[in-house]
């Protein structure tokens, strides 16, 4: 498939529509030559092609520079379908609905905590429920859980987890309207009842970082960031509740394919018209999972603040601990975009991709309206993560979207083989990074070498001008699931 790509510019490649008569639109891959040669699998490009066959798809099947082989849509895939005539596909969102990331800035500097890393890692590990199959400190009845699904992070703030100010720094204010808990199965509620306020496992993490590079001083100042400033990043999603909702609706959409005579090359892309009972029910349920994930990250952030204040024997006012932003990277949203000079209402599916709205966009909170949406790009636990902002080019090129992370380069199996006979935890400690995880296997599977160097991905995003670099952060304390 790679040989069929045509170079448009240094960061943009066309997968022509003519290569397969079933494609309704072309594919466009935003990637550098180096990433394309070294990291993009042929199967991932097949998935870009397959997505281009979805009914109602608009403009192109897109992929961000962290593209890699997934299921249905590739990871890093972005597609938009017409809200009136198009389809919605759970496979275009993924199982971990509203998996996302949030970034906090503190009043602390690296020198303030250099000798307190051990206290901090212990406090966080003790206070934050992590690990495979982890259950949390909260136990919800189904009726309480339905309130979470309807309200999202607003529910958490009402219950004392954080403040209203946090909601202003959260995509969609941490709550999607139209979330209908009655469209969520008993099974999903059962899985979600004990998992609110849990980090989970795999690539989910909580990190204490410091700013090691500033690229735009004006923007950095607005975010209260400067060199050596301490930041905190949390990456998790909707846990078992979201996984079950996606599973339930994959079955529903499988039947919908037959009902609506939709033929697709991969059942994982199963879909239904947005204007159908199946499509509307999925959107309502997906919003519930998105709200659950926002509540989850809000609660985890609250406990993080508590743990850090306790460990450093200081108040939240002293330490700052202010939320810069929280955004989703597995979601479908109703958005307005200009296509061929005309306003269109679209269902923008982002699977392993981040919304990256430009300065002036009405959906941005007032404090970011003049600079564009913060775009938080986590890397691996040994190198760095980035903060960028959305641009007007993202709006015209990628439906206001950017990448979501480094993306794996080694399979888990290869990572474990590569780590054999080594202590990744000790290697990272020598680099000044304290890691605490429930299981050694997770640390091996998640070792830095298992990921692309996120700076290559960020360079491609910046080169394509779909986000603008603000700052780079390096980890010093890592909690893994």
């Amino acid at each position, binding site marked *: 498939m790679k040989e069929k790509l045509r170079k448009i510019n240094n960061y943009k490649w066309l997968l022509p529509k003519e290569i397969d008569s079933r494609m309704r639109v072309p594919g466009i891959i935003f990637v550098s030559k180096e990433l394309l040669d070294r990291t993009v699998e042929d199967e991932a490009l097949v998935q870009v092609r397959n997505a281009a066959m979805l009914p109602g798809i608009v403009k192109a099947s897109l992929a961000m520079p962290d593209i890699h082989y997934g*299921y*249905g849509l590739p990871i890093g895939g972005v597609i938009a379908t017409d809200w009136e005539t198009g389809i919605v596909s759970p496979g275009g969102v993924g*199982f971990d609905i509203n998996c996302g990331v949030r970034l906090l800035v503190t009043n602390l500097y690296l020198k303030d905590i250099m000798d307190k890393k051990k206290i901090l890692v212990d406090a966080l590990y003790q206070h934050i429920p992590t690990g495979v*199959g982890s259950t949390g400190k909260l136990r919800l009845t189904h009726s309480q859980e339905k309130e979470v699904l309807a309200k999202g992070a607003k529910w958490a703030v009402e219950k004392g987890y954080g403040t209203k100010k946090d909601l202003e720094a959260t995509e969609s204010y941490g709550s999607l309207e139209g979330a209908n808990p009655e469209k969520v199965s008993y099974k999903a509620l*059962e*899985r979600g009842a004990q998992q609110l306020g849990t980090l989970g496992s*795999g690539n989910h993490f909580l990190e204490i970082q410091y700013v090691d590079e500033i690229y735009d001083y004006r923007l950095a100042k607005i975010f209260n960031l400067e060199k050596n400033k301490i930041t905190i990043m949390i990456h998790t999603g909707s846990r078992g509740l979201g996984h079950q909702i996606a599973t339930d609706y994959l079955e529903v959409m499988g039947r919908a394919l037959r009902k609506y005579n939709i033929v697709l090359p991969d059942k994982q892309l199963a879909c239904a018209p947005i204007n159908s009972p199946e499509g509307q029910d999925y959107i309502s349920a997906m919003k519930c999972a998105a709200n659950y994930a926002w509540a989850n990250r809000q609660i985890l952030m609250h406990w993080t603040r508590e743990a850090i204040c306790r460990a450093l024997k200081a108040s939240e006012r002293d330490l700052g601990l202010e939320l810069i932003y929280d955004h989703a990277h597995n979601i479908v949203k109703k958005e307005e975009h200009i296509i061929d000079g005309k306003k269109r209402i679209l269902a923008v599916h982002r699977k392993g991709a981040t919304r990256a709205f430009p300065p002036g966009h009405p959906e941005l909170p007032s404090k970011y309206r003049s600079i564009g949406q913060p775009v938080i790009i986590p890397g691996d636990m040994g190198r760095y993560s980035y903060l960028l902002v959305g641009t007007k080019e993202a709006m015209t090129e990628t439906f206001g979207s950017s990448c979501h992370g480094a993306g794996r380069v080694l*399979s*888990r199996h290869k990572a474990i083989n590569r780590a054999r006979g080594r202590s990744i935890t000790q290697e990272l400690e020598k680099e000044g990074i304290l890691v605490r995880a429930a299981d050694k296997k997770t640390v091996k599977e998640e070792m830095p070498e298992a990921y692309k160097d996120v700076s290559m991905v960020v360079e491609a995003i910046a080169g394509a001008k779909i986000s603008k670099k603000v700052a780079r952060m390096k980890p010093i304390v890592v909690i893994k699931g």
Partner: protein
Amino acid sequence: MKDYKYFSTTADMGMEVKGKDISQLFINAARGMFNLICSHKDFKAEEEVKIGLQGESWEELFFKWLSELLFYYDAYKIYFVDFQILKIRPFEIEAIIKGEKIKDRKIEREIKAVTYHNLEITQKNDTWEAKVLFDL
């Protein structure tokens, strides 16, 4: 080939399964999935759940079967070790599954979901085979 073997993609893991009949294929797939979650073999068959499922193809029934087991595992933290299929025919299954409630047991890997990606079930001579990808 063993009853099941794993394969890796960049981000996820999958499994190729075989069985001498459709019933054994479903049992081997269940064993393979739980072995991926945790490779310890000393879980007891003390908790029991009865399962009844229907689909419109073997693939759909297979997807539902593994998804159902994953639901009971994740919602109630039961690691299943014993799978008795009471009835299986196109395209429905009844089974009793038994396992142990995980308390302080160390679990090695989280499977978020069973995917439908390139899921296929084939019958070659007297062997049934399936290929399935998990979201990890």
